[in-house]
């Protein structure tokens, strides 16, 4: 069977496209990087792919709000092809800035009658933060997290705090099983495990089908064991803990 093809969709300011493509290839898939301008010219091109990934970076400089301008492009110009793409049972992944884009584009099923129920906003510290976090996967809805329990992954963002319109909106998403990834404590450094003040410790969420997934941590930055901050303190692992997410996506089509 042919390798599943991933479209890595980049915009001005996207900067994690190369390593994200590499992660999909390492996972056994094929990856092609395309500029948003190209897809806007020919939206049907997306149907050639099984997986769409919006990688990390600062699309349009995070200007106005992180992911907002990219998300509007999707809402205005790509809504139809995205609807078809999802209806065809294909996968969508948004990492960091890609998550910000997905949540603001409505593709994570966060819009209700009152408007968007959830978003990503400024970290409580008011600052950009780069560090590693422990995250806990839950439920069996999300295709990407199949078989995952706890993961140690890096974050690097300023606007990564998961926010909801109100408590009720949160409960709705939680009961729908969409809040599938949460920051969690590890032995010895439990007090600041939630790095940005995210409501409900949410680090990632999926849509109602589990096939569209966005997360703030960067799984593509932990593919090789030497990327881990403490690899010199322990026996060398075979692969990094981020690789299973990409393998799950690729195997979904195998």
């Amino acid at each position, binding site marked *: 069977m042919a390798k599943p093809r991933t479209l890595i969709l980049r915009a*001005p*300011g*996207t*900067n*994690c496209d*190369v*390593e994200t493509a*590499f*992660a999909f290839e390492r996972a056994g898939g094929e990856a092609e990087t395309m*500029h948003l*301008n*190209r897809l806007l010219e020919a939206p049907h091109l997306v149907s050639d792919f099984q997986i769409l990934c919006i990688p990390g*970076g*600062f699309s*349009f*400089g*995070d*200007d*106005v*709000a992180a992911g*907002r*301008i990219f998300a*509007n*492009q999707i*809402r*205005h110009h790509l809504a139809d092809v995205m609807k078809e793409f999802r209806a065809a049972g294909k996968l969508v992944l948004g990492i960091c800035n890609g998550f910000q884009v997905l949540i*603001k584009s409505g593709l994570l099923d966060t819009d209700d009658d009152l*408007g*968007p*129920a*959830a*978003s990503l*906003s*400024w970290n*409580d510290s*008011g*600052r*950009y*933060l*780069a*560090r*590693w976090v422990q995250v806990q996967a839950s439920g069996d809805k999300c295709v990407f997290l199949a078989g995952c329990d706890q993961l140690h992954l*890096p974050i*690097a963002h300023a606007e990564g705090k998961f*926010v*909801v*319109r109100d408590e009720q909106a949160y409960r709705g998403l939680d009961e729908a099983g969409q809040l599938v990834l949460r920051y969690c404590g590890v032995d*010895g450094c439990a007090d600041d495990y939630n790095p940005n003040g995210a409501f409900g410790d949410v680090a990632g969420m999926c849509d109602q089908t589990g096939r569209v997934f966005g997360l703030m941590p*960067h799984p*593509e*930055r932990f*593919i*090789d064991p*030497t*990327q881990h*901050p*403490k690899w*010199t*303190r322990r026996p*060398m692992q075979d692969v990094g803990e981020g690789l299973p997410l990409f393998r799950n996506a690729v195997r979904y089509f195998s």
Partner: protein
Amino acid sequence: MLWEIDLHPRPGCVDREAISVVGDAVELGISDRLQVRSARGFLIESASLSEQQVDTLAGELFADATVEEAVCAEVGTQALSTPPNGADAAGTLVHVLLKPGVMDSVAQSAEAAASDFGLPIDAIRTLRKYWIAGADDEQLATVGAKILANDAIEQVVVGPLPFDRLQLGSEYRFALQTVELESLDDQGLMRLSREGQLYLQLAEMQTIQKHFAGLGREPTDVELETLAQTWSEHCSHKTLAGRIAYRDENGERQFENMLKETIFAATQELRARWGDDDWCVSVFRDNAGIVRFDETNNLAFKVETHNHPSALEPYGGANTGIGGVIRDTIGTGMAAKPICNTDVFCFAPPDTPADSLPPGVLNPKQVMRGVVSGVRDYGNRMGIPTVNGAVYFDERYLGNPLVYCGNVGLIPHKMSFKAVKPGDLIVSVGGRTGRDGIHGATFSSAELTSESESLSGGAVQIGNAIEEKKVLDAILAMRDRGLYNALTDCGAGGFSSAVGEMGEEIGAEVWLERAPVKYDGLSYTEIWISEAQERMVLSVPQHNWDEVQKLCAEESVEATVIGKFEPTGRLVLKYHDQIVCDLSMEVLHDGRPPVIREAEYEVPPIQPLVVPASANYTDDLKRILSSYNVASKQWIIRQYDHEVQGGSVIKPLVGVQSDGPSDAAVVRPVLDSRRGVVISCGMNPRYGDFDTYHMAASAIDEAMRNCVAVGADPSRVAILDNFCWGDCEKSATLGSLVRAAIACHDVSLVLETPFISGKDSLNNEFSYVDAEGHKHTIAIPPSLLISAMGQVEDVSQCVTMDLKSAGNLLYLVGNTFDELGGSHFALVNDLIGGHVPMVNAELAKTTFANLHTAIKQGLARSCHDLSEGGLVVAAAEMAFAGDVGATIDLGDVPIAAASLSDAAKLFAESNTRFLCEVAPESKAAFENTLGELVPHACIGETTAEQTLIVQSGTSGDTIVEASLSELKTAWLTPLNW
């Protein structure tokens, strides 16, 4: 019509900006009872936008309804004067806007995004709004000037906005300007040089006068500007590359070209010595130095400084500093892909009392915050990991903070050289040209005051990282398709410098009116010398132009043909077919009369350093750990993305909690390879007060130590020099620099570590007049930064500095000497005098080589270089980073002399030393590998106790004892903002 959309935090959401303003007001001692509300806003100019359309924009583009609420109205409307909730107690309304002409990248993006809605919008600008209660008028003014806005780029408007449209430049009417030189005497020439901000010397002005007299005409303004820029210190390095008569205790030495005969000469000699094994590719010729990396790729490395702009506007200065050095790497060879950044800063201590600041000087803490934010926002947005850095504090950096920004790039072997071909088009790619960065001559005071809305922002700029990222993406794609023959960046001097350099061997004709401008009203001269950011110049064969244009459009990058390289040997500038400049390239590049300077150096006499008697040094250790130079820089490091591009191997912070200070960073630039690049640096301005020769030698040794400590191969380390010095017209100041350059030559040759590129920044002095009318000048200490780029064959052989487990042996490698001069022990105890650390380069070479062999064989579980604070500080850092205790017996410390005091063994900063953790089973192999030549000894062991214990070498008493947590707290606390 001018609309405004304000975005307020929704009730229940935190007003973070307001909290920060309140906090700053307390910190600066302005007031502790301020009440602040904040909002961010957008001004939208449009002739026909309806209210409903404005609401659509607010809801669908600008506001995030989960956390914000929007207020939309026409400017001047009452609704904009009060915040939506709790308006009664809101206080005075204050607006902060960028001055016209200052880069507003958010507004640029917003304009593009709004046009996507198909709405008729002319222009957008951003603003910030504050409602401030609890402050009197004076406090309000102080808050405005010190907290809310920087006058260099922003303006404060108290009350409603006094305008109802955005002014966007005015029409320019061409008039050719000539400058009368012939009639001027020497005084007149110098006045012109000064007042025209040409900053040329008399001999240079006379040469220009004579040249045009020979031509029988006067120069145009743009000809004079072009000569001034090309002959400037910044572009031609005329002082250090000039004639210098140098004198020190060894006698006199005449240099025809000082840099060429010292630093550059050492590299040439090494390359000749290596012959076929020469791994240098391109040195001291391109925008960055290039060395060989693997079978496919080379590495390019450049470090620049951006000191003066950072003093005026720290955020913008640092922002454009990192943006500039990244363009250097992109503009090297046929373009390198940037893979990591390094940043080194020098500031005055952040706790310098506000009332002791000279007029015109920004608070050092503010400078530091601004600089860090500037580097953060540019580096992170570019997607380039910032992996290495250092911060040094000294009172003498008060008026002259130093900002060194470096970038490493990966470049395919066959792309490492470039050559402009006659007939190629001159293509400008990237940002538009504005009045940015034009020196004061074009930014006259009349323009500043006569119209409040006039275009400003001349000297100080803010970068737009996304523009540069787009340019990078487009250039790498064009490079790989072979669409151009050469490229360079627009840095200082703008088009003038870029086109002038590229066309040096051929000749060029430029059509200035074609350059895309940000707004109307730019004169031909302004277009030519503007230093607007994010621009590159490409040399494109005519037949590739269509493809270049298409590819750039696909990447949303503007590309414009602005001229042609013609084999005329001349630089011809035209504005709508009128010739405004016609100079021969020869005069431009070789016409400058040589600069001749005197330099002398007198070694300050050695004063004895008296160590106060003490039975316990625990407190000294903690005070050194808490001293600003040594203390953790976690607050800075965590704001930088050091993992983007997915190649991070050794991070800047390591250990159990990822908070120990790594010696160097290691990145893997090729994702399916294990070959690594190692980045480190060395610097110690305090040693320069003793002898700049030893300062320079120590800086090289430190940079090498840091590289070797993580596993770099010492025979593949390339280094860069960055000299930041005071006024080099003073012979003693220049002498101290020449002496440092001689040391660079000597040590580089022995270590076989080549310099591949460098840069200098002279005249870092700050003068002010105090309240009594007395003039003071603060010169920075001699500040030589050595940046090192090493390589490691397989990153899985790297080691980190954190102790790994109890029961291992601790080896001290290298001799310790009575070298407390300039040490941090002396600093925290206010001791003067002593011997400054020296370098035995021969022994250093052997030590680096043998230690590397040991590390490569996996014989060291951890390794840390000994630098600021000496042995005991290194031991403390290793222990608390690894959560593993240690005991050390000073009696076993290797020394060359008959005896040495405990204080010196603990705190001396002698060079070429490492502390290594060795498993007992590796003992013999480790010792054998180091060999007899390299001094080393087992001085202690790692323990399961959470303590560091050091025993005296003479009495055997415990002289240092502390828990790891108290040591770590001492180290983490001072800069944990």
